[in-house]
């Protein structure tokens, strides 16, 4: 059934409906399909191992910049030793999951959409269907599971490297006392901050996987269609991650009694 109406709102609502149906099909398949370990391991390798450099560089330089900027402000009120605490809490609950989610949306989301889009325009997805294989089982589920596993791990890595880089900048570049710096960081960073970051990254993994796979599976004809699907996958994933982050911050803040 086609949504009756015209303009981008109708298209947007129709797309949202299709994405919801794909998500329903995927989650139903998630609990019933036979795991193809080989495909799953390859996807985890592709998403996790091959994203290392991007995530490490992003995490490190974000931690360093945040450390420097915090120091510039805190130094005025003689709170230098609280610098790493700010870096740590920010990296754990906001910057770690969001920046890792955005970087993975750019690298992995684009690859998913381009690969699935190319398979669609070259009839490989139709070929899968004729071989009695559901495209969701074979293509979407391993990608979703791999992001669910890899993104929290990448986020934890990004957080750790960000805090480490902030520490290096604080101690060796800005001359802050290392003992107090470390002490206040441990004092003000709670388990809940880390939990919030990891929960967010888990949700972002689902968002990137579903939007990218949806865009790939529903791409237009030819090279132009694949190109557009790839761009849209990255743009929509990134925007959705940023918007969702705000609501998750409020919701998780309530859950962990931060409001």
């Amino acid at each position, binding site marked *: 059934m086609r949504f009756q109406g015209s303009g981008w709102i109708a298209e947007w609502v129709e797309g949202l409906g299709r994405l919801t149906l794909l998500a329903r099909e995927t989650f139903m398949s998630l609990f019933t399909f036979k795991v193809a370990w080989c495909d799953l391991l390859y996807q985890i390798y592709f998403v996790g191992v091959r994203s290392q450099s991007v995530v490490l560089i992003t995490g490190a330089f974000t931690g360093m910049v945040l450390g420097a900027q915090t120091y510039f402000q805190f130094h005025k009120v003689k709170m230098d030793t609280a610098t790493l605490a700010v870096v740590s809490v920010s990296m754990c609950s906001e910057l770690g999951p969001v920046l890792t989610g955005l970087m993975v949306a750019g690298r992995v989301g684009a690859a998913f959409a381009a690969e699935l889009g190319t398979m669609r325009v070259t009839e490989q997805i*139709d070929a899968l*269907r*004729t*071989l009695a*294989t559901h495209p969701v089982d074979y293509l979407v589920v391993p990608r979703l599971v791999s992001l669910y596993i890899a993104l929290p791990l990448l986020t934890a890595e990004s957080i750790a490297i960000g805090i480490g880089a902030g520490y290096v900048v604080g101690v060796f570049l800005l001359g802050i006392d290392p003992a107090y710096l470390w002490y206040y960081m441990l004092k003000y960073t709670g388990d809940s901050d880390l939990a919030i970051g990891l929960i967010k990254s888990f949700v972002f993994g689902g968002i990137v996987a579903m939007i990218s796979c949806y865009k790939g599976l529903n791409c237009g004809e030819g090279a132009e269609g694949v190109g557009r699907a790839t761009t849209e996958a990255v743009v929509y994933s990134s925007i959705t991650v940023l918007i969702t982050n705000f609501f998750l911050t409020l919701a998780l803040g309530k859950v962990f009694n931060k409001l």
Partner: protein
Amino acid sequence: MIEVRDLKKSFGSHTVLEGVTFQIKKGESVVIIGRSGGGKSVLLKHLIGLLKPDQGQVLIEGENIVPMSERELLHVRHKFGMLFQSAALFDSLNVFENVSFAFRRDRSLPEGEIEKKVNEVLELVDLEGTQMKKPSELSGGMRKRVGLARAIIYEPEIVLYDEPTTGLDPIVSDSIDKLIIRVRDRLDVTTVVVTHDMRSAQRIGQRIIMLHERKVYATGTPAEIFGSTDPIIRQFVDGISNPKDHLF
């Protein structure tokens, strides 16, 4: 075995099929001919449930597949093998992995048995020794042969061919025609071929269905179709264009 009743399909405002009706018996070899863009491939995709019609029924062994969900269709598709116009090989997998795909997915056979079956079917399509090659290393004709091997390895009851000789030179086309006949005779399958290659149609088909103006225009044996005096059939069979179709 296959029955199509009053099938209608449009893409936007463009109507492709308008009330197509025909039957194909078990073991029969049917060729669907018609002009390019006339809805032949669209019709073929309806037979295996890759497309949903706007109206009408597609019955496979008496079972209407139109209202079935994608998951319900998976069971029906075990009866089918399909060779695509572009072969549609999985380009990230080698020949062995492509051909053995169906068995490796449902894990119904041990690895040794799968290897044996792949070797047998590659021998049938004259492609022994290509197991480790990637699709990008194969010629157009070889790709179609691998596509056919993948379609017939699990011994389906019905094999669908979407323009199997398009884009191939006459010698390779001839070998593909012979291969289709060999597969039909050796595996005793129902064969449905969509083509506008008249030589292939004459050689492969026991019956020819001609689509024209979105409907079944004629149906008959190759002798009846090729001997017809109907101007539309003659024009298509002889390959004569209308003056208004001239580009220059």
